[in-house]
């Protein structure tokens, strides 16, 4: 088993783990943070798939902007709940 193969398998497993935790964790704030982690892992996966263009787009748009939008939406949620 080569090092590359081991790294790919580990990365795929962490992708699935972070995705699962995103859906299963009870706290929505943690879910969003886990989703951003997932996005960064996706960036790594794209790099491994020799797709640097997608890696850049994923980091900026996927993880970055989507993450910011979601965090902002939670800000509203928290603000209303505990004024």
């Amino acid at each position, binding site marked *: 088993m080569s090092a590359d193969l081991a790294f790919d398998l580990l990365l795929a497993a962490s992708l699935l783990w972070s995705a699962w935790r995103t859906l299963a964790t009870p706290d929505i704030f943690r879910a969003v943070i886990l989703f951003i982690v997932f996005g960064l892992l996706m960036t790594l996966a794209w790099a491994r798939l020799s797709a640097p263009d997608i890696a850049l787009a994923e980091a900026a*748009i996927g993880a970055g902007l989507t993450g910011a939008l979601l965090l902002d939406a939670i800000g509203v949620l928290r603000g209303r709940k505990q004024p």
Partner: protein
Amino acid sequence: MTTGLIFACAGAILFTMGVAGVMLLDHLLRRILAFNLMGSGVFLVLVGLAQRAGNPDPVPQAMVITGIVVAVAATALALALARRLFTLSGGYTLPETPDD
């Protein structure tokens, strides 16, 4: 087992998780997260499967960039609706379907 196939398999599982999440979860933000997981899964299958022999292919890569932009558009739209519903009803869950 090539890099492409490994990530294509991960993508298949991600897609199923995402679809199940959108269908089963109640919290709107979580359903939006699930939709994004579903999308990422499809993108991984698209590129991973096309590159299963190990050679990079720019065509599916370009398609995924298009797909990512469409996904962020859909996410922003969904969030706008969810936040509007939140201000109107005070919650991030859909009301039960009224039978008409």
